[in-house]
């Protein structure tokens, strides 16, 4: 590459954070620190039943005995867990009969994010459960969903209104002792989303949750639980942006999916949290545990587009427990500036004739480091299990890195595992060819990178695919030419 082009490429992903604004809300924040009393405070604030408090306390005890994991390829400054505040809630929590009652500040914030709820309610077929600082403030489309028998509400409401369903499934996929951050989440989670799709029901719309972190120096611990009964189907969208800030923010969410016999859950994420400034200062730490359990003939599909966060640690996984169950993972991860992304999936094949597909697209720019870390595990019981894995890395510039770390464990000789990997750069030739046809360098770059991600974008629901492409283009905009 010519020197000039390389400089331009390196500058490409350095665009400012478009959604870096902060909305002033009165916030009720607990003092920093984490003790058993903090756990009790959270449970009390939320008027939780005793069984949940006990569950939290067990998790807290487990967490205290666990060590923070130490990952290769990740450079993390120590996190002071006692400096974090574990509870924040908007003090003006309105009782909502209609969208008109939503705090105008919050409405305005959603408008900036391009989520005009009033229009969505009229025009789109998407129910939005908007979460500001861990507490749901508005939920739409409940009536339509209720007609179908689908429950879609905040986690707190679910604990209050459907305690048996929550108690039966909470922690059934991600046990409290699963890992350091899952244990922490289990002890202090503040709120999140709950979805229940009854037997044979096809959820009549895409379910969408927009997350937003809005309080300085407040860790956010979301808990999501989706249960799809036999022969049901649900598509769930999760997307988030966050305001610019100076201090690192820890985000340790847990998502559990249960797909019972012949059920299908499609979980799509577009993540655009604040990645920090040019030196990575102030970016969000995103340590997420996402896992699904697929029973007989069930299918769980994860699709994610990750462009934000200073550090991403995330391995949406599927336990293929039932025979003929299917697991899929489609991922685009962009790391620019000094972002670090360590992401991938785990496919654990238990049932016979189970199949899993993994398509991972990593894009590295600036000084970004992108690692694919994936585990494909075929247990002895997994007769005729199959896996296909494809990992492609795209490098923009010479100071970034791409790493592929596939783990494969096969205990059944009938299993088939395929792994393909490639690393490429955006070619000078591709840019020149596109520019000769009249495209600007910026447009050409966005087009080429979007083309690289096509297989993954094709898996996203239409409205999300458009948003993901826009996000990627915005992330790549910068000092071209």
């Amino acid at each position, binding site marked *: 590459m*010519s020197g*000039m*082009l390389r400089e331009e490429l390196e500058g490409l992903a350095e665009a400012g954070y478009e959604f870096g604004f902060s909305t002033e809300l009165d916030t009720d924040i607990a003092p920093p620190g984490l003790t058993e009393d903090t756990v009790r405070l959270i449970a009390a604030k939320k008027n939780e039943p005793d069984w949940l408090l006990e569950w939290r306390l067990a998790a807290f005890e487990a967490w205290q005995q666990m060590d923070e994991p130490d990952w290769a390829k990740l450079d993390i400054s120590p996190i002071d867990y006692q400096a974090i505040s574990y509870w924040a809630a908007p003090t003006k929590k309105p009782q909502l009969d209609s969208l008109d009652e939503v705090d105008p500040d919050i409405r305005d914030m959603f408008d900036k994010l391009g989520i005009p709820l009033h229009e969505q309610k009229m025009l789109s077929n998407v129910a939005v459960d908007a979460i500001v600082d861990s507490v749901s403030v508005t939920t739409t489309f409940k009536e339509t969903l209720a007609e179908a028998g689908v429950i879609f509400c905040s986690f707190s409401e679910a604990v209050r209104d459907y305690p048996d369903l929550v108690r039966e499934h909470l922690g059934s996929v991600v046990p409290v002792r699963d890992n350091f951050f899952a244990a922490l989440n289990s002890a202090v989670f503040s709120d999140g989303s709950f979805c229940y799709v009854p037997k044979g029901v096809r959820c009549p719309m895409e379910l969408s949750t927009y997350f937003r972190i809005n309080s300085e120096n407040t860790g956010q611990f979301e808990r999501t639980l989706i249960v799809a009964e036999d022969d049901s189907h649900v598509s769930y969208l999760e997307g988030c942006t966050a305001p610019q800030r100076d201090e690192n923010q820890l985000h340790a969410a847990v998502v559990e999916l249960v797909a019972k016999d012949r059920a299908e859950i499609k979980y799509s994420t577009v993540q655009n949290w604040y990645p920090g400034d040019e030196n990575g200062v102030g970016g969000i730490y995103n340590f997420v545990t996402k896992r699904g359990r697929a029973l007989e003939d069930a299918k769980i599909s994860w699709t994610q587009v990750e462009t934000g966060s200073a550090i991403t640690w995330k391995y949406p996984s599927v336990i293929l427990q039932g025979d003929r169950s299917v697991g899929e993972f489609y991922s685009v991860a962009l790391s620019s500036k000094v972002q670090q992304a360590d992401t991938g999936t785990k496919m654990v094949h238990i049932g016979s004739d189970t199949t899993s597909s993994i398509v991972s697209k990593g894009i590295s720019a600036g000084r970004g480091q992108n690692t694919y870390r994936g585990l494909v595990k075929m247990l002895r019981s997994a007769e005729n299990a199959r896996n296909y894995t494809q990992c492609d890395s795209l490098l923009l510039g010479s100071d970034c890195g791409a790493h592929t770390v596939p783990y494969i464990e096969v205990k059944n000789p009938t299993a088939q595992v395929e792994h393909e990997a490639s690393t490429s750069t955006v*070619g*000078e*030739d*591709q840019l*020149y*060819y*596109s*520019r*000769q*046809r*009249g*495209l*600007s*360098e910026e*447009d050409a770059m966005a*087009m*080429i990178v*979007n*083309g*690289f*991600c*096509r*297989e993954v974008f094709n898996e996203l629901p239409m409205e999300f695919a458009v948003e993901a492409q826009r996000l990627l283009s915005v992330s790549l905009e910068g000092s071209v*030419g």
Partner: protein
Amino acid sequence: MLEVTNLNASIDGNRILNGIDLSVGSGEVHAVMGPNGSGKSTFAHVLAGREGYEVTGSVALDGADLLEMEPEERAAAGLFLGFQYPVEIPGVNNMYFLRTALNSVRRARGEDEISAREFLAVAREAMALVEMKPDFLERSVNAGFSGGEKKRNEILQMAVMQPRLAVLDETDSGLDIDALRVVASGVEALRGPDRSMIVITHYQRLLEHIRPDVVHVLVDGRIVESGDHTLALHLEEHGYRDFGEQDGAGQRLSGV
């Protein structure tokens, strides 16, 4: 329409073009022939604005100074380069690419963007010209195309872009007889009083299908001879040795 004056180009200190003078009038088709390494492709890329060359001299397209422009500005000014090795862009839909290109050029010229419906009509017409099946537009740009398909795609793009000046760099290389006929008839159909072409080729056989108004012989980065189409026939018979070409002495020019 195109005035090239004393055009010099070098790359990493190696002189490749040595004072090219060339004048192409509106509606004219000029052939540039020459042995391997004579600078034919460099000439094409210098016109299109590829980075990496040190260039002096002047190139004016309809009076505008091309050398001052970025590649995309040259495209908007009406320059089209048919690539010898068309580039693959995986995951980018051929139709999307072409419509984006056309609209980029239209925007740069202050024209309205073309609608998807209008574009489809234009594209269908162009596809008929190069005998392409409809699924052609749905595939990724040049990805997995055969050599012949890539060249036909170049002509398809030219038909859609409707350039003022088309430079075709060895469009005939690597084509079988049928593909050559399709490509040549496509080019022939796009000839017109408002469009000029520079056809760069190593062999005479393309010129059996496209009769040029003027033939130039390029050796060691300079035009050493110009004439009518009979000059190409002379080259066919005698090779480039009459023009000081050393390495290719005695080289037969017909066939592949």
